[in-house]
């Protein structure tokens, strides 16, 4: 058995340092700070799930620049009934009065900044670096994970370069709603040069953000104990499996021109269809996606050989997570 005590202490120190690093920014007097101290946030405890200024939970998106990505009308609709806007969302319906809702929308629309797009694009640095700066500037981590940072609202982007083409990224970033009508991803109206820089940066994201935070394995163990299934769920999210196979592995994500029905498969039967060894072996090969119509562009999504990028613990945990959906093969059964 591994000794997690020392790594645990290291993680503890690391976290303490990160927390203090996060508190470097002085939020006092900002619109974010005013919202944080407002009666609405105090009463409804928005910080149970959302980070506002430098405080709050990690279930929902970071709200600090929400005014940049959501117009007033959208926020009104969202706060009136989140399920209407995004069916199945974790954001519950709050019974705000009209006055409270209008006040909340007022606070939220004020939480914004002026993007540095022009300035960044005119800098004399490589295009990937520009993309990286834009990524920070647009606060993409408010919803997306990269390595240890960000939130699990949109797909995890730690491995995005492995599973999407640069052309796909450009099409998507140019106008997400045109590609996937009704998507939750806002349109940032990024100029063409900015889209190119972001797509170039995203292409470089192939897991190195994980490597940079070497404590990953220890940290998951440290916080969750040895609960394979729960660690596996994190692996499922971190490697971005869910962006194609759906939240909770339910599938039903569209992959245009993929045979037989343009839909990504769910993974709920993996535990029934594969043994652990078969699963690990299969994941070490690239999955080829068959086209429905050979004369049309190839399906944009494919599954890379993640098995070669995950360590043994991660692979086993992932299998434990997927197997948890297959109760037929659980440890116990009805006679």
């Amino acid at each position: 058995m591994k000794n997690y005590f020392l790594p645990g202490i290291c993680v503890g120190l690391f976290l303490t340092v990160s927390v203090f690093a996060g508190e470097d920014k002085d939020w006092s007097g900002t619109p974010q700070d005013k919202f944080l101290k407002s009666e609405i946030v105090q009463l409804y405890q928005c910080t149970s799930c959302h980070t506002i200024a430098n405080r709050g939970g990690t279930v929902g998106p970071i709200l600090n620049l929400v005014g940049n990505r959501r117009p007033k009308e959208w926020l009104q609709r969202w706060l009136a009934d989140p399920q209407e806007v995004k069916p199945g969302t974790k954001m519950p319906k709050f019974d705000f009065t009209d006055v409270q809702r209008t006040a909340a929308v007022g606070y939220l629309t004020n939480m914004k900044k002026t993007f540095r797009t022009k300035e960044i694009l005119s800098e004399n640095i490589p295009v990937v670096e520009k993309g990286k700066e834009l990524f920070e500037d647009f606060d993409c981590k408010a919803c997306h994970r990269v390595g240890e940072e960000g939130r699990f609202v949109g797909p995890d982007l730690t491995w995005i370069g492995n599973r999407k083409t640069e052309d796909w990224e450009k099409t998507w970033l140019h106008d997400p709603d045109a590609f996937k009508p009704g998507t939750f991803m806002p349109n940032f109206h990024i100029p063409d040069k900015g889209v190119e820089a972001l797509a170039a940066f995203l292409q470089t994201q192939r897991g190195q953000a994980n490597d940079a935070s070497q404590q990953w394995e220890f940290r998951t163990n440290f916080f969750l104990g040895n609960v394979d299934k729960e660690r596996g769920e994190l692996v499922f999210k971190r490697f971005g499996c869910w962006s194609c196979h759906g939240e909770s592995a339910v599938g039903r994500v569209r992959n245009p021109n993929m045979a037989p029905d343009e839909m990504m498969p769910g993974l709920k039967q993996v535990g029934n269809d594969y043994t652990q060894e078969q699963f690990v072996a299969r994941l070490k090969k690239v999955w080829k996606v068959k086209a429905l119509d050979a004369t049309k562009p190839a399906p944009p999504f494919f599954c890379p050989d993640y098995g070669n990028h995950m360590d043994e613990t991660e692979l086993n945990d992932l299998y434990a997570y997927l197997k948890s959906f297959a109760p037929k093969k659980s440890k116990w059964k009805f006679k």
Partner: protein
Amino acid sequence: MSKKHWLNIGGLSICAVATAFFVLDIVSGNDVPDVQAAIADGGTVSGVVKFPKEYPEREKITITKDQAICGAFQYSETFVVSEETKGLKNVVITIKGAKGAVKAAETPASVSQTKCQYVPHVQAVPLGTKLQILNNDGILHNVHAYFSGLDPKNTVFNKAQPKFLKKISENLDKAGIYYFKCDVHDHMNAYVAVMDHPYYAVSDENGAFSIAGVPPGTYTVEAWHEALGQLSKEVTVKAGQKSEVVFDILPNE
């Protein structure tokens, strides 16, 4: 030192209040009234759901949020097994095909959120019964209800229950199993089985169940458990007699 002392008193008071609420819940008739249309010449189906000698331990869940209320850890309620009888709690038993009109309970059924746990974890109610959802914790919970399976598309409603909102009421208008989950506190979940007939029960601490007033005949008895799934058995009910059904759980080899 004195600060710590006051904290202790504060903590104790919170516990006392929470306990008081919990006791109140029970006294105020949280239990669903017995609405089973007892038939004079009916029979009784009773039995047990049980493990062999070996049985799973309750999984320990580490809590990372609102620990002052929720505690540092909780035990999973998936497998609650009696050490003595090896019986499994929280299995929903239904008799399929027995004729009997469903009657909504006059007093609402209820599920409470107490110390970041849904109480009860599993219950069965007749179709048309109102469900009260109570927040005894004084912190924000959300009640995300799914019908037949945890899948975003199966969302029936998702309502916030902020610290000041002690009670909300909902109608569960379809027969089947509703799943409740708190997105704020990921470990919290509960099941409510809504029945369109009067012949059902939920297994108790000893894994035992009993359904009375069943019209004579041959039926399928179905057991449903959140992790084990479903199992059916046949039973013949005779007037005024007791029929035994045993659901055995075995290692899955």
